[in-house]
């Protein structure tokens, strides 16, 4: 236990060092604006991927509605800062909380469903949220909200991202996280072992939605404008792609996936006609030749666990996917 703690703090230290280096580069102006907005985008995407990983990778509940939670958070926080002059941090937190409420609401009725039925129901919920936004004049209808103050700075983003990754990762490693993994591996067996599967599924959905909502708020305050169209099911797909490309069920994998997909997207922007074609070919080839993702099932522990435990995890996780 002591060893893990040491590694944990070492990891935090490395992350803070990274933060410092980027901060210095930003203040000295070495990093251009393009690079800065890419960094912010990467941070937002890491939050999205890590939170979806909790739902899909850890708990095994296949959800294609993550962009819906994101949009709830984005709209809530944007309206709070635009119309009610609420300070930035409370606005982001409020966005996350409302998204979490939606997580509960969506989690409860759909828990009877599993596998692909759950997937299509969550897709439906995401689209319903989008269409509600599209038809509500209060939130700007089809043209969305614009003129949102660009309050997301590198410092804000970094700490939000760091805190969400640490919180989610600690949750995964807790007793509750183990219960979620048990549900992913075999729901009936988990139930038989006395795990309240319904409760844990709702918990996973709620936490996932909470952080997706905060990510939505952060992205709204990065790019000035939000429209319902930017939170459609293609956005949800994009988040799933990050999680799966990185390695389903691994927090480190989700981070790597988020960085990889964001970089791919950004650098392919130079070839607009070929961008989506190259992207889709990368996707197909990745799945055919490395279906377990870039990092496979490696754990996020800022280093390796004891050998015994790592081995046990490998055997479990190689079989488990929804």
């Amino acid at each position, binding site marked *: 236990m002591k060893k893990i703690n040491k590694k944990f703090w070492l990891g935090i230290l490395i992350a803070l060092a990274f933060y410092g280096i980027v901060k210095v580069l930003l203040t000295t102006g070495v990093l251009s604006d393009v690079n800065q907005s890419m960094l912010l985008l990467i941070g937002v995407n890491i939050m999205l991927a890590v939170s979806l990983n909790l739902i899909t990778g850890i708990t095994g509940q296949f959800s294609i509605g993550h962009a819906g939670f994101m949009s709830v958070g984005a709209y809530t926080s944007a309206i709070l800062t635009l119309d009610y002059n609420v300070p930035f941090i409370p606005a982001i937190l409020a966005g996350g909380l409302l998204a979490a409420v939606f997580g509960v609401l969506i989690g409860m*009725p759909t828990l009877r469903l599993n596998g692909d039925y759950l997937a299509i129901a969550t897709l439906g919920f995401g*689209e*319903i949220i989008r269409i509600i936004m599209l038809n509500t004049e209060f939130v700007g209808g089809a043209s969305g909200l614009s003129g949102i103050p660009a309050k997301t700075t590198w410092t804000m983003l970094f700490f939000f991202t760091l805190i969400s990754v640490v919180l989610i990762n600690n949750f995964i490693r807790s007793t509750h996280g183990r219960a979620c993994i048990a549900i992913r591996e075999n729901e009936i*067996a988990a139930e038989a072992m006395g795990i309240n599967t319904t409760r844990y599924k709702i918990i996973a959905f709620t936490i996932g939605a909470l952080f997706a909502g905060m990510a939505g708020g952060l992205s709204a305050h990065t790019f000035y404008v939000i429209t319902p169209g930017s939170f459609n099911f293609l956005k949800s797909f994009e988040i*799933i792609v990050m999680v799966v490309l990185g390695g389903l069920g691994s927090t480190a994998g989700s981070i790597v996936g988020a960085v990889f997909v964001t970089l791919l997207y950004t650098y392919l922007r130079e070839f607009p006609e070929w961008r989506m074609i190259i992207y889709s070919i990368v996707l197909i080839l990745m799945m055919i030749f490395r279906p377990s993702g870039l990092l496979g099932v490696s754990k996020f522990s800022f280093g390796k666990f004891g050998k015994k435990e790592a081995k046990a995890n490998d055997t479990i996780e190689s079989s488990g996917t929804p």
Partner: protein
Amino acid sequence: MEYFIQQLINGISVGSIYALIALGYTMVYGIIKLINFAHGDVFMVGSFIGLYSAKYLANAGMPPIVVLLLSLIISMTISALLGITIERLAYKPLRKSTRIAALITAIGVSFLLEYTGVLILGPQAKGFPDIMDKKQYHLFGSSIQVESNQIMILLTTIILMLVLQYIVRYTKTGKAMRAVSFDVEAARLMGINVDRTISATFAIGSALAAAAGVIFGMTYNSVDPLMGVMPGLKAFVAAVLGGIGSIPGALVGGLLLGTVETEISSLGFSSWRDGVAFAVLILILIFKPSGLFGKNVREKV
């Protein structure tokens, strides 16, 4: 009342397009448990092939009915080959891997088809030629109108459904398909060529989607490379609605979805149309988790 019936007729013709696409989803899902997200784009490809062959044939001076039948057949054949190719290249290597990997591949194939389409054909919508003259008939002397197009759509759908029923019930391939969807391993042990059966499923599903594409083009007179996204999604919803894996379910789901959508639009809520479609889906799933016609399979321990 007459207005309602009028909308019902319009809804059925939209619904039959959904139903034709939904059949492909349902058959593929029934056999390899894969949500084939690229299916909506096969529909798009089918529509474009229909467009070009119809133009070519009409220029060659063929009579309208021949143009219609030939372009349907050409489009269905090429799309069937496309379906087989996609299955062989993209899905077959993944048959042993996880379902989410297969799903991501399907999304990849979908993007590939869409944006290759954009690259080759350009992003603008293209006009679909009028193959047949549009005539309007009044039903029983009332004000209810039926267009010749709608009759043609319904006829095509019914004929294709009957052919499909025949194939699935009475032919050797159809029996093999049912066997594979029941239990892949047992089917293989009984000497069924599973790979060939899966290819046949993809071929039939893609051919039906292509037929839907041609009909869609004739109805809305406009086709573009991204047009498969929404109908594809809707058709998938229809398949789930009816109980995925069930052929009558896909038909009923498609017709139900089309009717509900048209009625909602006619009441003046057209911007809520898609939302209502998904709300209906969620409601049905909550009360009947395996769809209207789905078998409720109890998981065994």
